[in-house]
């Protein structure tokens, strides 16, 4: 099945094409096509996943029973373990080194987890050689770019949840994209599903790509589709300032900035290593260090620069500081789009890339610090902004940014698997939240303000139930998915704080805890405001509303208040996916229960064990290098060494703090939720308004509501500052550059206008110009002939003289030259 993985993007692209072709004619079928395609890809993804799982299981563990056992019992690797290792006594360290030497001395050392090395798993799916340039760039090194996909554990996990969540979202969209009292299809129904399918195809390409270029195709495709989808209602106004089309543009531009960084990073890597293939890069970096170009070692300058640039790309796609501004405005798209973008796709791209390149990032500790800081700061800032928002989708948008911050925080401390696990759980509960919000909005006819809702739990039981589950999950309450993933991130940050730079990581940890509190609060707030307490909707429909409905039936995006008694649960295609996702936001966390909380034997840390071959490579490599490994014959040997080191380091792992930390974070979550319930539980807004009147809180409220005035800051930076720079540049331009650069542009136009004048419509002028060309061609040919003939032939003047001098020419004969045998042209064959 792995070899057929290319089917996945192709199927989606086919669906996109079919829908694009059929356009309006298809009607409902458009939705079915896309949903069908998506479910098909889900099935394929499942099969791929199962196969990958079987292969992972079948790989023999190295280092005997002991190591395998240990391996099974811990879930955490990386910098945190390295930190733990530092604390070991001298004797223990020596013992580990001895073991390391032993492993290294054994030439037949098994190659565990060689699955990620090209060919090991058969996970490399080359389709064809795409670009092959023999020895033009970088001396004689050929540039070869394969169009290839790559399947490993990381990919298969991503495939699974993207296709699953995606399928549910697609199903949901078939219900959601109907409007008005008669459930008429949205006029752009087919177009919408075409975009959606294309979006999924791009996302699949992104995660399947075996090298930067293929990944970048998907990366750009996702950007393009997000532009199209966010700007889907291009004729509507999104907010006072922005139209939906503008929101699309904003997303596009912010992403372009990031892409610029990504491209520079790519070029830098290519310049240094001469390849863009992920596995080759990773193999090279984990190979002989001395063979690498300068700047590619541990904490090398180039690798740091490249990873930073790549991270800039990730901040664009995954909405981190400084490029997160587009995400809240991405709400302008239809709700299924928001769910898709925020939960399973697009924003996870940055996380994915970091995890994919964890070897690079582990080799660049400086970058990791930046990643951690950006992640932590984004998590906090976005959570703070989420506190006071009124639009339900806005709240969710900021919560996404915040959760993404968590993920980057996890990666910043070197626990990539934890980051991925949070992506995974987040995909479920965030999709659930968005879809439930969409259900609300749908039921309330485009009312998004939570202050105008309330008491809806009675009317919309399914939605409320799912939203509640997801809220508990995101708040980190104990058996729910979010608890396991978030707690693990915090735990990893905490362990990082035990090593060097403890204070710094400790601060990050505290920030994380604070964010958790805020998260619980604002999510609780949104739930309470929307579903509990007394309703703030009108109790009964007003008369004019009835009339309006009759008259404005076609005007589907027109807001008109819905009375409480009119609200009813959304239809099955909408509620079904929500409820499924709600239940899943309870259970998916159980895939990765740490032993420290609940010893379950083999069932502990399933997720991590599965991912470890990919995500822990970097950590293992660094660990190995730290203790003298400088590369050797088998790159996999390095991994073995690191593995052994880490396992030994973990032998002393103490699970004490894990439990305590878990209790702390659950407590924090409960406090946040409780506070929200206290403040808003009654259904009236009086308490909160009362609080908001206090000066300090008022100011904070302002900061939060305006999202730290981030847009204004951008205005200041990019508009005002740029205006100043522009003024200077303008002066420079007008006075100095004008003559040169602008002049060329003007010259082009000027010449263009001259050409236009020449093209005056008179056929004879055309003939004349043509004839000029004829004369030039012939003149050149005639003049170049003597030169071409060489010196031993007559010169031009001689020739001329001879022409003029000769009269009776045909009498001069030269020796006839034997003619070649040529394919007879005529009747000679008879």
């Amino acid at each position, binding site marked *: 099945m792995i070899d057929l993985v290319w089917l996945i993007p192709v199927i989606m692209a086919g669906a996109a094409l079919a829908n694009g072709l059929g356009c309006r004619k298809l009607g409902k079928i458009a939705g079915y096509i896309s949903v069908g395609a998506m479910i098909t890809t889900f099935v394929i993804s499942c099969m791929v996943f199962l196969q990958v799982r079987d292969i992972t299981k079948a790989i023999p563990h190295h280092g005997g029973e002991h190591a395998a056992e240990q391996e099974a019992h811990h879930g955490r690797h990386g910098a945190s373990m390295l930190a733990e290792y530092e604390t070991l006594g001298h004797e223990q360290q020596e013992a580990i080194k001895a073991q390391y030497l032993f492993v290294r001395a054994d030439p037949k050392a098994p190659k565990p987890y060689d699955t990620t090395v090209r060919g090991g798993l058969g996970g490399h799916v080359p389709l064809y050689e795409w670009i092959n340039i023999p020895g033009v760039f970088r001396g004689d090194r050929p540039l070869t770019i394969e169009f290839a996909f790559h399947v490993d554990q990381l990919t298969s996990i991503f495939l699974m949840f993207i296709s699953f969540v995606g399928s549910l979202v697609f199903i949901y969209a078939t219900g959601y994209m109907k409007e008005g009292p008669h459930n008429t299809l949205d006029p752009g129904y087919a177009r919408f599903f075409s975009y959606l399918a294309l979006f999924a195809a791009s996302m699949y390409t992104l995660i399947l790509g075996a090298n930067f270029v293929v990944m970048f195709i998907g990366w750009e495709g996702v950007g393009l589709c997000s532009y199209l989808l966010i700007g889907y209602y291009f004729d509507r106004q999104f907010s006072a300032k922005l139209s939906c089309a503008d929101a699309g543009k904003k997303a596009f531009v912010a992403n372009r900035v990031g892409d610029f960084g990504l491209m520079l990073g790519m070029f830098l890597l290519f310049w240094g290593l001469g390849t863009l293939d992920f596995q080759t890069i990773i193999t090279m970096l984990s190979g002989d260090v001395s063979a690498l170009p300068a700047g590619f070692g541990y904490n090398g300058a180039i690798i740091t620069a490249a990873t930073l640039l790549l991270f800039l790309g990730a901040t664009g796609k995954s909405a981190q500081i400084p490029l997160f501004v587009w995400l809240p405005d991405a709400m302008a798209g239809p709700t299924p789009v928001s769910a898709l973008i925020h939960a399973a796709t697009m924003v996870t791209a940055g996380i994915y890339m970091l995890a994919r390149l964890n070897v690079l990032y582990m080799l660049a500790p400086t970058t990791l610090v930046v990643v951690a800081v950006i992640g932590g700061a984004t998590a906090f800032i976005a959570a703070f902004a989420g506190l006071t928002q009124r639009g339900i989708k806005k709240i969710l948008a900021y919560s996404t940014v915040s959760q993404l911050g968590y993920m980057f925080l996890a990666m910043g401390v070197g626990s990539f698997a934890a980051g991925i696990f949070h992506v995974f759980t987040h995909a479920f509960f965030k999709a659930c939240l968005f879809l439930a919000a969409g259900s609300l909005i749908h039921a309330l006819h485009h009312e998004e303000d939570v202050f105008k809702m309330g008491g809806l739990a009675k009317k919309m039981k399914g939605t409320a139930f799912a939203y509640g589950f997801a809220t508990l999950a995101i708040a980190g309450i104990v058996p729910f998915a979010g608890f396991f993933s978030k707690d693990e991130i915090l735990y990893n940050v905490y362990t990082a704080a035990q090593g060097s730079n403890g204070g710094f990581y400790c601060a990050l940890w505290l920030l994380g805890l604070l964010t958790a509190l805020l998260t619980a609060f604002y999510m609780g707030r949104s739930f309470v405001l929307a579903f509990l307490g007394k309703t703030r909707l009108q109790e009964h429909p007003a008369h004019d509303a009835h009339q309006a409905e009759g008259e404005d039936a076609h005007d589907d995006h027109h807001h008109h208040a819905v009375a409480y008694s009119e609200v009813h649960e959304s239809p099955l295609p909408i509620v079904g996916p929500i409820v499924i996702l709600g239940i899943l936001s309870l259970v998916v966390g159980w895939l990765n229960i740490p032993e420290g909380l609940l010893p379950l034997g083999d069932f502990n840390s399933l997720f991590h064990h599965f991912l470890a071959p990919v995500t822990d490579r970097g950590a293992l490599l660094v660990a190995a290098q730290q203790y003298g490994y400088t590369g050797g014959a088998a790159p996999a040997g390095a991994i073995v060494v690191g593995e052994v080191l880490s396992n030994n380091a973990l032998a002393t792992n103490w699970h004490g703090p894990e439990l305590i930390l878990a209790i702390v974070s659950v407590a924090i979550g409960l406090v946040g939720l409780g506070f929200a319930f206290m403040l808003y539980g009654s259904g009236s807004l009086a308490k909160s308004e009362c609080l908001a009147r206090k000066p300090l809180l008022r100011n904070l409220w302002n900061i939060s509501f305006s999202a730290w005035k981030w847009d204004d800051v951008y205005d200041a930076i990019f508009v005002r500052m740029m205006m100043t720079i522009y003024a200077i540049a303008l002066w420079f331009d007008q006075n100095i550059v004008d003559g040169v650069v602008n002049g060329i542009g003007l010259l082009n136009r000027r010449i263009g206008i001259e050409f236009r004048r020449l093209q*005056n*419509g008179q*056929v*004879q002028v055309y003939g004349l110009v043509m004839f000029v060309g004829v004369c030039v061609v012939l003149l050149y040919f005639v003049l170049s002939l003597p030169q071409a003939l060489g010196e031993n032939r007559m010169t031009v003047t001689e020739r001329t003289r001879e022409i003029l001098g000769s009269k009776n020419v045909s009498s001069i004969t030269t020796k006839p030259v034997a003619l070649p045998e040529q394919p007879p042209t005529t009747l000679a064959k008879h």
Partner: protein
Amino acid sequence: MTSLLQPNLILATLLFTIGILGVMWKRNAIALFMSVELMLNAANLAFVSFAHELGIMSGGILVLFVMTVAAAEAGVGLAIFIALFRARRHIRVDEHDTLHG
């Protein structure tokens, strides 16, 4: 016998040049097209004289083809002139400059 190749080629070139001049100078589309015919005739002449010089008796074959093509071109071309004349009431080539720029 004296070879007529060189003078004939000169003559052909001269006729060809005159044809080109006609294309560039004539205002009446039909007269202009007659100049093109002159050019084709010049090509014929060159071909025949080459063939004669080379002793290839069938050199006239090109003439037949060029003639056919010329006839076909004349048919279509004159029809186009008629169509243009019907549309614009004249066929002065330099005054048809609606399409320009």
